[in-house]
Protein backbone atom coordinates (compact mmCIF):
# COMPACT_ATOMS: atom_id res chain seq x y z
CA UNK A 1 0.00 0.00 0.00
CA UNK A 2 1.32 3.45 -0.81
CA UNK A 3 1.13 5.63 2.29
CA UNK A 4 2.44 9.07 3.05
CA UNK A 5 4.55 9.69 6.16
CA UNK A 6 4.58 13.33 7.25
CA UNK A 7 7.88 14.42 8.78
CA UNK A 8 7.63 17.18 11.42
CA UNK A 9 9.87 20.26 11.26
CA UNK A 10 12.33 19.21 13.99
CA UNK A 11 13.06 15.92 12.21
CA UNK A 12 13.35 17.22 8.66
CA UNK A 13 17.07 17.72 9.24
CA UNK A 14 17.34 13.92 9.05
CA UNK A 15 15.23 13.43 5.91
CA UNK A 16 17.10 15.76 3.59
CA UNK A 17 14.58 18.52 4.48
CA UNK A 18 11.71 16.50 3.02
CA UNK A 19 8.29 17.26 4.47
CA UNK A 20 6.86 13.86 3.67
CA UNK A 21 8.03 10.51 2.41
CA UNK A 22 5.94 8.06 0.38
CA UNK A 23 6.50 4.41 1.25
CA UNK A 24 4.98 1.00 0.56
CA UNK A 25 3.71 -0.66 3.74
CA UNK A 26 0.90 -2.74 5.18
CA UNK A 27 1.36 -1.64 8.80
CA UNK A 28 2.60 1.43 10.65
CA UNK A 29 5.65 -0.54 11.79
CA UNK A 30 6.55 -1.38 8.19
CA UNK A 31 6.06 2.22 7.10
CA UNK A 32 8.34 3.61 9.83
CA UNK A 33 10.88 0.92 9.13
CA UNK A 34 10.84 1.85 5.42
CA UNK A 35 11.39 5.52 6.27
CA UNK A 36 14.22 4.85 8.71
CA UNK A 37 15.87 2.51 6.22
CA UNK A 38 15.82 5.27 3.65
CA UNK A 39 16.94 7.90 6.21
CA UNK A 40 19.04 6.10 8.79
CA UNK A 41 19.82 9.22 10.87
CA UNK A 42 16.12 9.46 11.70
CA UNK A 43 16.13 6.14 13.50
CA UNK A 44 17.60 7.19 16.85
CA UNK A 45 15.15 10.10 17.00
CA UNK A 46 12.15 7.80 16.65
CA UNK A 47 13.23 4.64 18.44
CA UNK A 48 15.14 3.91 21.62
CA UNK A 49 18.00 1.39 21.64
CA UNK A 50 15.58 -1.46 22.40
CA UNK A 51 13.59 -0.59 19.26
CA UNK A 52 10.59 0.95 21.02
CA UNK A 53 9.00 4.16 19.84
CA UNK A 54 10.29 6.98 22.05
CA UNK A 55 7.81 8.33 24.61
CA UNK A 56 8.06 11.92 23.36
CA UNK A 57 7.14 10.90 19.82
CA UNK A 58 3.57 10.04 18.87
CA UNK A 59 2.46 8.45 15.65
CA UNK A 60 -0.97 8.91 14.09
CA UNK A 61 -2.73 7.14 11.25
CA UNK A 62 -4.87 9.90 9.78
CA UNK A 63 -6.13 11.54 13.02
CA UNK A 64 -5.91 8.51 15.34
CA UNK A 65 -3.09 7.88 17.82
CA UNK A 66 -1.66 4.38 17.20
CA UNK A 67 -1.34 3.85 20.98
CA UNK A 68 -5.14 3.46 20.96
CA UNK A 69 -5.16 1.31 17.82
CA UNK A 70 -2.85 -1.70 17.39
CA UNK A 71 0.36 0.30 17.89
CA UNK A 72 2.99 -0.59 15.26
CA UNK A 73 0.80 -3.47 14.11
CA UNK A 74 -1.90 -0.99 13.06
CA UNK A 75 -2.73 -1.73 9.45
CA UNK A 76 -2.68 0.97 6.83
CA UNK A 77 -4.41 1.21 3.50
CA UNK A 78 -3.51 3.03 0.31
CA UNK A 79 -3.90 6.78 0.69
CA UNK A 80 -3.53 6.81 4.49
CA UNK A 81 -1.41 9.51 6.07
CA UNK A 82 0.94 8.67 8.91
CA UNK A 83 1.99 11.65 11.06
CA UNK A 84 5.00 11.70 13.33
CA UNK A 85 4.33 14.29 16.07
CA UNK A 86 7.19 14.92 18.49
CA UNK A 87 7.02 17.00 21.61
CA UNK A 88 8.11 20.62 21.09
CA UNK A 89 8.49 23.14 23.89
CA UNK A 90 9.23 26.53 22.34
CA UNK A 91 7.34 29.58 23.45
CA UNK A 92 8.28 32.44 25.69
CA UNK A 93 11.97 33.15 25.57
CA UNK A 94 14.65 32.66 22.91
Amino acid at each position, binding site marked *: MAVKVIIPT*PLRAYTGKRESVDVQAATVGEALSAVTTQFSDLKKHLFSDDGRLRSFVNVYVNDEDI*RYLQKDQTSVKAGDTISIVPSIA*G*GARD
Partner: protein
Amino acid sequence: MATKTGVPVAAPGDGRPDAKLSKEEVLRYSRHLIMPEVGMEGQLKLKQARVLCIGTGGLGAPLGLYLAAAGVGQIGLVDFDVVDFTNLQRQVLFGTSDVGRPKITAAADRLRNLNPEIRIDAIEERLSSENALELFRDYDIIVDGTDNFPTRYLVNDACVLLGKPNVYGSIFRFEGQITVFGYPDGPCYRCLYPEPPPPGLVPSCAEGGVLGVLPGIVGTIQAAETLKLIIGKGQPLVGRLLLFDALGMKFRELKLRKNPDCPVCGENRTLTKLIDYAEFCGIRGEEAPSTVTNIPEITARELKARLDRGDDIYVLDVREPHEYQICNIHGHLIPLGELPQRVHELDSSREIVAHCKSGKRSAQAVEFLQKAGFRKISNLKGGILAWSDEVDPSVPKY
Protein backbone atom coordinates in the same frame (compact mmCIF):
# COMPACT_ATOMS: atom_id res chain seq x y z
CA MET B 1 -20.52 26.99 40.54
CA ALA B 2 -19.53 26.07 37.01
CA THR B 3 -20.52 27.26 33.58
CA LYS B 4 -21.68 24.92 30.85
CA THR B 5 -18.08 24.32 29.87
CA GLY B 6 -16.82 23.69 33.36
CA VAL B 7 -14.84 26.86 34.08
CA PRO B 8 -15.66 28.36 37.46
CA VAL B 9 -17.32 31.76 37.42
CA ALA B 10 -17.50 34.34 40.13
CA ALA B 11 -18.79 33.40 43.52
CA PRO B 12 -20.21 36.41 45.35
CA GLY B 13 -17.84 38.00 47.81
CA ASP B 14 -14.57 36.46 46.65
CA GLY B 15 -13.12 39.79 45.62
CA ARG B 16 -14.18 39.75 41.98
CA PRO B 17 -15.38 42.96 40.34
CA ASP B 18 -19.09 43.80 40.31
CA ALA B 19 -21.18 42.06 37.68
CA LYS B 20 -21.99 45.27 35.86
CA LEU B 21 -20.35 47.50 33.27
CA SER B 22 -19.70 51.23 33.54
CA LYS B 23 -20.68 53.58 30.71
CA GLU B 24 -17.04 53.65 29.58
CA GLU B 25 -16.86 49.87 29.57
CA VAL B 26 -20.04 49.58 27.52
CA LEU B 27 -18.45 51.82 24.90
CA ARG B 28 -15.09 50.01 25.02
CA TYR B 29 -16.66 46.56 24.61
CA SER B 30 -19.48 47.56 22.28
CA ARG B 31 -18.33 45.27 19.43
CA HIS B 32 -18.58 42.35 21.84
CA LEU B 33 -21.87 43.48 23.36
CA ILE B 34 -23.66 43.69 20.04
CA MET B 35 -22.83 40.11 19.07
CA PRO B 36 -25.13 37.54 20.65
CA GLU B 37 -22.34 34.99 21.25
CA VAL B 38 -20.76 37.35 23.76
CA GLY B 39 -23.38 39.96 24.67
CA MET B 40 -23.70 41.46 28.14
CA GLU B 41 -23.70 38.02 29.74
CA GLY B 42 -20.41 37.02 28.11
CA GLN B 43 -18.78 40.38 28.73
CA LEU B 44 -19.61 40.17 32.44
CA LYS B 45 -18.10 36.68 32.54
CA LEU B 46 -14.95 38.12 30.97
CA LYS B 47 -14.89 40.92 33.53
CA GLN B 48 -15.11 38.48 36.40
CA ALA B 49 -12.61 35.99 34.95
CA ARG B 50 -9.08 35.48 36.21
CA VAL B 51 -6.46 34.18 33.80
CA LEU B 52 -2.82 33.42 34.57
CA CYS B 53 -0.35 33.68 31.67
CA ILE B 54 2.89 31.76 32.19
CA GLY B 55 5.55 33.61 30.20
CA THR B 56 5.32 37.01 28.53
CA GLY B 57 7.38 36.14 25.46
CA GLY B 58 6.39 35.22 21.93
CA LEU B 59 3.16 33.42 22.88
CA GLY B 60 2.38 35.57 25.93
CA ALA B 61 2.56 38.80 23.93
CA PRO B 62 -0.47 38.39 21.65
CA LEU B 63 -2.22 36.43 24.36
CA GLY B 64 -1.86 39.21 26.92
CA LEU B 65 -2.82 41.89 24.41
CA TYR B 66 -6.02 40.15 23.29
CA LEU B 67 -7.10 39.09 26.78
CA ALA B 68 -6.58 42.63 28.06
CA ALA B 69 -8.32 44.19 25.07
CA ALA B 70 -11.25 41.77 25.45
CA GLY B 71 -11.75 42.86 29.06
CA VAL B 72 -10.62 39.81 31.05
CA GLY B 73 -10.94 41.32 34.52
CA GLN B 74 -7.81 39.98 36.12
CA ILE B 75 -4.71 38.88 34.22
CA GLY B 76 -1.72 37.43 36.02
CA LEU B 77 1.64 37.51 34.24
CA VAL B 78 4.52 35.31 35.38
CA ASP B 79 8.03 35.94 34.06
CA PHE B 80 11.47 36.72 35.45
CA ASP B 81 13.33 37.61 32.27
CA VAL B 82 14.60 40.92 30.91
CA VAL B 83 13.75 42.26 27.43
CA ASP B 84 16.64 41.87 24.97
CA PHE B 85 17.09 42.85 21.34
CA THR B 86 16.54 39.33 20.01
CA ASN B 87 13.04 39.32 21.59
CA LEU B 88 11.76 42.22 19.48
CA GLN B 89 11.52 40.11 16.29
CA ARG B 90 8.37 38.47 17.70
CA GLN B 91 7.53 39.61 21.23
CA VAL B 92 5.21 42.42 20.17
CA LEU B 93 4.41 43.51 23.72
CA PHE B 94 7.78 45.24 23.84
CA GLY B 95 9.35 48.18 22.06
CA THR B 96 12.99 49.10 21.50
CA SER B 97 12.93 51.41 24.53
CA ASP B 98 11.98 48.41 26.73
CA VAL B 99 15.27 46.60 26.09
CA GLY B 100 16.90 45.99 29.46
CA ARG B 101 13.66 46.35 31.44
CA PRO B 102 12.12 43.40 33.26
CA LYS B 103 9.58 41.83 30.90
CA ILE B 104 6.97 41.78 33.60
CA THR B 105 7.18 45.55 34.17
CA ALA B 106 7.17 46.37 30.46
CA ALA B 107 4.29 43.96 29.82
CA ALA B 108 2.19 45.26 32.72
CA ASP B 109 2.71 48.88 31.57
CA ARG B 110 1.68 48.00 28.03
CA LEU B 111 -1.45 46.10 29.09
CA ARG B 112 -2.52 48.74 31.63
CA ASN B 113 -2.20 51.33 28.90
CA LEU B 114 -4.27 49.18 26.57
CA ASN B 115 -7.01 48.67 29.15
CA PRO B 116 -7.01 50.56 32.47
CA GLU B 117 -10.33 48.96 33.44
CA ILE B 118 -8.74 45.61 34.29
CA ARG B 119 -6.37 44.37 36.96
CA ILE B 120 -2.88 43.18 35.98
CA ASP B 121 -0.94 41.08 38.49
CA ALA B 122 2.76 41.36 37.62
CA ILE B 123 4.42 38.34 39.19
CA GLU B 124 8.20 38.53 38.77
CA GLU B 125 9.04 35.02 39.83
CA ARG B 126 10.44 31.88 38.33
CA LEU B 127 7.62 29.34 38.39
CA SER B 128 8.64 26.41 40.59
CA SER B 129 7.23 23.37 42.35
CA GLU B 130 7.27 25.48 45.53
CA ASN B 131 5.12 28.37 44.27
CA ALA B 132 3.02 26.95 41.40
CA LEU B 133 0.01 25.64 43.34
CA GLU B 134 -0.25 28.78 45.44
CA LEU B 135 0.01 31.02 42.34
CA PHE B 136 -2.48 29.01 40.26
CA ARG B 137 -5.09 28.76 43.00
CA ASP B 138 -6.34 32.33 42.49
CA TYR B 139 -7.01 31.93 38.76
CA ASP B 140 -9.71 30.18 36.71
CA ILE B 141 -7.62 29.33 33.65
CA ILE B 142 -3.87 28.89 33.18
CA VAL B 143 -2.31 29.62 29.78
CA ASP B 144 1.03 27.96 29.11
CA GLY B 145 3.36 30.05 26.95
CA THR B 146 6.68 28.80 28.30
CA ASP B 147 9.67 27.65 26.30
CA ASN B 148 10.98 24.60 28.10
CA PHE B 149 9.96 21.08 29.04
CA PRO B 150 10.38 21.26 32.84
CA THR B 151 7.97 24.21 33.09
CA ARG B 152 5.51 22.56 30.70
CA TYR B 153 5.29 19.44 32.89
CA LEU B 154 5.11 21.59 36.03
CA VAL B 155 2.23 23.68 34.62
CA ASN B 156 0.43 20.52 33.51
CA ASP B 157 0.72 18.71 36.82
CA ALA B 158 -0.27 21.78 38.87
CA CYS B 159 -3.33 22.33 36.64
CA VAL B 160 -4.40 18.69 36.92
CA LEU B 161 -3.93 18.68 40.72
CA LEU B 162 -6.02 21.85 41.04
CA GLY B 163 -8.56 20.92 38.34
CA LYS B 164 -7.86 24.00 36.21
CA PRO B 165 -7.89 24.15 32.41
CA ASN B 166 -4.47 24.61 30.79
CA VAL B 167 -4.53 26.35 27.41
CA TYR B 168 -1.42 24.95 25.75
CA GLY B 169 0.59 26.29 22.81
CA SER B 170 4.10 25.49 21.67
CA ILE B 171 6.15 26.40 18.64
CA PHE B 172 9.19 25.37 16.67
CA ARG B 173 10.54 27.27 13.65
CA PHE B 174 7.33 27.52 11.60
CA GLU B 175 5.22 24.85 13.23
CA GLY B 176 2.88 25.10 16.21
CA GLN B 177 0.81 22.82 18.45
CA ILE B 178 -2.25 24.03 20.34
CA THR B 179 -4.76 22.28 22.62
CA VAL B 180 -6.64 22.60 25.92
CA PHE B 181 -5.46 20.25 28.68
CA GLY B 182 -6.72 19.72 32.21
CA TYR B 183 -10.38 19.99 31.34
CA PRO B 184 -12.84 17.82 33.26
CA ASP B 185 -12.58 14.33 31.71
CA GLY B 186 -10.19 15.64 29.06
CA PRO B 187 -6.59 14.54 28.47
CA CYS B 188 -3.52 16.21 29.98
CA TYR B 189 -0.02 16.88 28.64
CA ARG B 190 1.26 13.62 30.13
CA CYS B 191 -1.49 11.71 28.30
CA LEU B 192 -0.04 13.11 25.08
CA TYR B 193 3.65 12.86 25.99
CA PRO B 194 4.40 10.76 29.07
CA GLU B 195 8.03 11.90 29.08
CA PRO B 196 10.12 14.75 27.70
CA PRO B 197 12.89 14.19 25.16
CA PRO B 198 16.37 13.86 26.64
CA PRO B 199 18.23 17.20 26.65
CA GLY B 200 20.02 17.93 23.41
CA LEU B 201 17.99 15.63 21.17
CA VAL B 202 15.45 18.30 20.22
CA PRO B 203 16.86 21.72 19.32
CA SER B 204 15.52 24.74 21.22
CA CYS B 205 14.21 27.89 19.54
CA ALA B 206 17.53 29.54 20.38
CA GLU B 207 19.26 26.93 18.21
CA GLY B 208 16.50 26.23 15.72
CA GLY B 209 15.07 29.72 15.29
CA VAL B 210 11.42 30.65 14.98
CA LEU B 211 9.45 32.58 12.36
CA GLY B 212 8.49 35.79 14.18
CA VAL B 213 4.83 35.72 13.25
CA LEU B 214 4.38 32.06 14.32
CA PRO B 215 4.02 32.74 18.08
CA GLY B 216 1.69 35.56 17.09
CA ILE B 217 -0.66 33.09 15.39
CA VAL B 218 -0.35 30.36 18.03
CA GLY B 219 -0.68 32.80 20.96
CA THR B 220 -3.73 34.34 19.33
CA ILE B 221 -5.33 30.90 19.01
CA GLN B 222 -4.61 30.37 22.73
CA ALA B 223 -6.31 33.70 23.42
CA ALA B 224 -9.35 32.65 21.38
CA GLU B 225 -9.61 29.35 23.29
CA THR B 226 -9.29 31.17 26.62
CA LEU B 227 -12.06 33.63 25.75
CA LYS B 228 -14.30 30.77 24.55
CA LEU B 229 -13.75 28.85 27.79
CA ILE B 230 -14.72 31.94 29.80
CA ILE B 231 -17.87 32.78 27.89
CA GLY B 232 -18.77 29.10 27.50
CA LYS B 233 -19.43 29.26 23.77
CA GLY B 234 -18.28 27.15 20.84
CA GLN B 235 -16.23 23.98 20.74
CA PRO B 236 -13.09 24.16 22.87
CA LEU B 237 -9.89 22.42 21.70
CA VAL B 238 -10.37 19.67 24.27
CA GLY B 239 -9.31 16.22 23.09
CA ARG B 240 -8.02 17.73 19.87
CA LEU B 241 -4.45 18.67 19.02
CA LEU B 242 -4.30 21.43 16.43
CA LEU B 243 -1.14 21.41 14.33
CA PHE B 244 -0.25 24.51 12.37
CA ASP B 245 2.36 24.72 9.62
CA ALA B 246 3.03 28.31 8.57
CA LEU B 247 5.16 27.34 5.55
CA GLY B 248 2.53 25.07 4.01
CA MET B 249 -0.16 27.33 5.61
CA LYS B 250 -2.01 24.26 6.78
CA PHE B 251 -3.96 23.38 9.88
CA ARG B 252 -4.39 19.73 10.82
CA GLU B 253 -6.25 18.22 13.72
CA LEU B 254 -5.43 15.02 15.60
CA LYS B 255 -7.50 13.23 18.22
CA LEU B 256 -6.19 13.38 21.76
CA ARG B 257 -7.31 10.74 24.20
CA LYS B 258 -7.18 10.58 27.95
CA ASN B 259 -4.63 7.90 28.83
CA PRO B 260 -6.17 5.58 31.44
CA ASP B 261 -2.65 4.81 32.68
CA CYS B 262 -1.62 8.48 32.94
CA PRO B 263 0.48 8.94 36.12
CA VAL B 264 -1.17 12.26 37.01
CA CYS B 265 -4.76 12.10 35.68
CA GLY B 266 -5.32 8.33 35.18
CA GLU B 267 -7.41 6.03 37.31
CA ASN B 268 -4.44 4.70 39.27
CA ARG B 269 -2.49 7.91 39.47
CA THR B 270 0.89 7.78 41.16
CA LEU B 271 1.66 11.49 41.09
CA THR B 272 -0.26 13.36 43.75
CA LYS B 273 2.09 16.27 44.32
CA LEU B 274 4.55 18.35 42.33
CA ILE B 275 8.01 16.86 41.75
CA ASP B 276 11.50 18.05 40.77
CA TYR B 277 10.93 18.86 37.08
CA ALA B 278 14.55 19.66 36.23
CA GLU B 279 15.45 16.18 37.39
CA PHE B 280 12.44 14.65 35.57
CA CYS B 281 13.62 16.27 32.34
CA GLY B 282 17.24 15.24 32.88
CA ILE B 283 18.45 18.84 32.91
CA ARG B 284 20.93 18.30 35.74
CA GLY B 285 22.81 15.80 33.62
CA GLU B 286 23.16 18.29 30.81
CA GLU B 287 24.63 20.97 33.06
CA ALA B 288 27.56 18.76 33.96
CA PRO B 289 28.55 17.12 30.69
CA SER B 290 31.26 14.58 31.35
CA THR B 291 32.59 14.43 27.81
CA VAL B 292 33.40 18.12 27.47
CA THR B 293 35.97 18.08 30.25
CA ASN B 294 38.73 16.45 28.20
CA ILE B 295 38.28 18.63 25.14
CA PRO B 296 41.21 21.00 24.58
CA GLU B 297 40.15 24.63 24.40
CA ILE B 298 41.64 27.86 23.14
CA THR B 299 40.30 31.32 24.02
CA ALA B 300 39.42 33.85 21.35
CA ARG B 301 42.25 36.16 22.49
CA GLU B 302 44.81 33.33 22.32
CA LEU B 303 43.66 32.31 18.86
CA LYS B 304 43.85 35.91 17.60
CA ALA B 305 47.38 36.33 19.03
CA ARG B 306 48.57 33.11 17.45
CA LEU B 307 47.03 33.92 14.04
CA ASP B 308 48.62 37.39 14.19
CA ARG B 309 51.95 35.74 14.96
CA GLY B 310 51.59 33.76 11.75
CA ASP B 311 51.11 30.33 13.32
CA ASP B 312 49.72 27.78 10.87
CA ILE B 313 46.22 27.23 12.24
CA TYR B 314 43.30 25.88 10.24
CA VAL B 315 40.05 27.44 11.48
CA LEU B 316 37.12 25.06 11.08
CA ASP B 317 33.62 26.54 11.29
CA VAL B 318 31.02 23.81 12.02
CA ARG B 319 27.93 26.04 11.89
CA GLU B 320 25.29 26.01 9.14
CA PRO B 321 25.75 27.96 5.86
CA HIS B 322 23.01 30.48 6.78
CA GLU B 323 24.85 31.24 10.03
CA TYR B 324 28.09 31.75 8.10
CA GLN B 325 26.27 34.40 6.06
CA ILE B 326 25.36 36.31 9.24
CA CYS B 327 28.99 36.54 10.36
CA ASN B 328 32.20 34.58 10.09
CA ILE B 329 35.90 34.74 10.95
CA HIS B 330 37.00 33.31 7.58
CA GLY B 331 36.94 29.73 8.79
CA HIS B 332 36.56 26.73 6.51
CA LEU B 333 32.86 25.81 6.67
CA ILE B 334 31.85 22.20 7.28
CA PRO B 335 28.51 21.95 9.14
CA LEU B 336 28.64 19.54 12.08
CA GLY B 337 26.16 17.18 10.40
CA GLU B 338 28.37 16.86 7.30
CA LEU B 339 31.62 16.34 9.19
CA PRO B 340 31.60 12.51 9.06
CA GLN B 341 31.29 12.53 5.25
CA ARG B 342 33.75 15.39 4.72
CA VAL B 343 36.42 14.51 7.24
CA HIS B 344 38.83 13.73 4.35
CA GLU B 345 38.90 17.47 3.55
CA LEU B 346 40.84 18.02 6.77
CA ASP B 347 44.59 17.57 7.15
CA SER B 348 45.33 15.89 10.47
CA SER B 349 48.94 17.03 10.40
CA ARG B 350 47.88 20.68 10.68
CA GLU B 351 46.68 22.33 13.85
CA ILE B 352 42.90 22.79 13.75
CA VAL B 353 40.71 25.09 15.85
CA ALA B 354 36.99 24.31 15.56
CA HIS B 355 34.34 26.87 16.35
CA CYS B 356 30.57 27.35 16.21
CA LYS B 357 28.28 30.02 17.66
CA SER B 358 28.84 29.35 21.36
CA GLY B 359 31.21 26.38 21.55
CA LYS B 360 28.75 23.54 22.06
CA ARG B 361 28.55 22.10 18.56
CA SER B 362 32.27 22.58 17.95
CA ALA B 363 32.96 20.63 21.16
CA GLN B 364 31.09 17.73 19.55
CA ALA B 365 33.11 18.23 16.38
CA VAL B 366 36.39 18.13 18.34
CA GLU B 367 35.28 15.00 20.16
CA PHE B 368 34.37 13.36 16.85
CA LEU B 369 37.66 14.34 15.22
CA GLN B 370 39.67 13.13 18.23
CA LYS B 371 38.01 9.75 17.84
CA ALA B 372 38.88 9.88 14.14
CA GLY B 373 42.55 10.24 15.06
CA PHE B 374 43.08 13.99 14.97
CA ARG B 375 45.49 15.06 17.72
CA LYS B 376 46.29 18.74 17.03
CA ILE B 377 42.78 20.02 17.52
CA SER B 378 41.08 22.36 19.97
CA ASN B 379 37.75 24.08 20.50
CA LEU B 380 37.28 27.86 20.42
CA LYS B 381 35.92 28.58 23.89
CA GLY B 382 32.65 30.52 23.71
CA GLY B 383 32.56 30.33 19.90
CA ILE B 384 32.10 33.28 17.59
CA LEU B 385 30.19 35.09 20.35
CA ALA B 386 33.39 35.15 22.43
CA TRP B 387 35.33 36.31 19.35
CA SER B 388 32.91 39.24 19.10
CA ASP B 389 33.31 40.02 22.81
CA GLU B 390 37.07 39.61 23.13
CA VAL B 391 38.60 40.22 19.71
CA ASP B 392 36.42 41.97 17.14
CA PRO B 393 33.23 43.76 18.26
CA SER B 394 32.35 44.43 14.61
CA VAL B 395 31.38 40.73 14.31
CA PRO B 396 27.62 40.79 14.97
CA LYS B 397 26.12 38.56 17.62
CA TYR B 398 22.96 36.63 16.83
